[in-house]
């Protein structure tokens, strides 16, 4: 008969080798082989194989605990020593531990702040291809101080787009306007933002009603946040009616303001730029490049 047939299961032998690292392995495996052979001679090959496996599985817990137990004991000892040292040098320990805690917490807070700052406007689906155009200027006296200014000429975008084919869409954006609402009986001010029709095609703001492709494309159109829509129309009513803004606007839809905290733009009502009767003093330029 092929002597290979009498060999213990190969996988079990490898497992045994894994469990008993070190030089003892040779003697241990030899003993296991010898007992396997002895059992095979008495009870047959199948029983011997079964014994080999069973025996191996039985010795797994003890071999694991053997390797971990003393390490844990040692670790506990180190902890005890550390604790006693802390108790012995109270003032010193207090300064060191509180200093470390302070340092770690400051570091974590700084990290959280940076994370929050870097997460701004990242939720837009194509955030990596939307760019804000800014103006870099120098002071008048010696032209040495450089400053950055997001205010641009209102017509810049429409001039840039034909010259740079990389620009797919561009929109202006101005959010520091206030409008008088309901000028008749009880007028109040409302913070408005103005934008070009492409605004909702470029950014990921979701409309709960209305079409992102056509919104703001007509003159005198307006987009409301859900909260301001509730304010003007009440809960559950459909948009599309003229808001009471000189009778000139038309509500295109409600924008869900879910991302408010994470967006640089904090607006309530968006008005189409086309219909702004006065030229705003400055407009933001946003252009999308590819």
């Amino acid at each position: 008969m092929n002597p290979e047939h009498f060999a213990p299961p190969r996988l079990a032998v490898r497992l045994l080798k894994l469990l008993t690292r070190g030089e003892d392995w040779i003697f241990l495996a030899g003993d296991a082989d010898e007992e396997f052979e002895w059992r095979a001679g008495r009870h047959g090959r199948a029983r011997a194989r079964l014994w080999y496996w069973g025996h191996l599985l039985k010795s797994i817990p003890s071999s694991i605990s053997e390797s971990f137990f003393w390490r844990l004991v040692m670790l506990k000892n180190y902890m005890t020593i550390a604790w006693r040292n802390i108790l012995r040098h109270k003032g010193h320990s207090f300064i060191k531990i509180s200093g470390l805690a302070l340092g770690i917490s400051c570091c974590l807070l700084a990290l959280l702040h940076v994370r929050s700052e870097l997460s701004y406007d990242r939720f837009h689906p194509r955030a990596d291809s939307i760019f804000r155009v800014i103006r870099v200027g120098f002071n008048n006296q010696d032209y040495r101080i450089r400053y950055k200014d997001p205010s641009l000429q209102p017509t810049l975008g429409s001039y840039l787009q034909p010259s740079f084919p990389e620009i797919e869409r561009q929109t202006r954006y101005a959010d520091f306007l206030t409008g008088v609402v309901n000028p008749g009986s009880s007028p109040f001010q409302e913070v408005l933002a103005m934008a070009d029709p492409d605004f909702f095609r470029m950014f990921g703001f979701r409309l709960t009603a209305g079409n992102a492709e056509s919104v703001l494309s007509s003159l005198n159109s307006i987009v409301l946040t859900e909260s301001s829509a509730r304010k003007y129309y009440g809960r559950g009513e459909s948009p599309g009616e003229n808001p009471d803004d000189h009778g000139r606007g038309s509500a295109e839809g409600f924008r869900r303001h879910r991302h408010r905290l994470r967006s640089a733009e904090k607006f309530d009502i968006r008005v189409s730029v086309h219909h702004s009767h006065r030229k705003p003093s400055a407009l933001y330029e946003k252009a999308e490049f590819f």
Partner: protein
Amino acid sequence: MKDLTKIEEILLLAIWNLGQDAYGFRIRRHIAEALGLDLTFGNLYSALGRLDRKGYVLKRFGESAPARRGKTRMYYSLSPSGRKALRSAHDLSLKMWESFEKSTLDFERP
């Protein structure tokens, strides 16, 4: 004098009993036949390692056998201090049981 655990005591006894023939397989079979204890190899070898570290056993490389597929045997024998430890363990348990026998040796008694 370091204390012997029960399994170490059993192993020392088995090694002593087996004399020249004390290696892993024999020790395990001997314990299984004499005491009906089925030690796992993990138990056996960690206990043998402890005995070796305490200096109670001496190790000696032996020959191989066909059944071992070329792997050599490791023979164990008692060192003088191991012999001493075994004797003191024997004395201790003898004293222990003697003192017990002075009262009534009744395991059913609460």
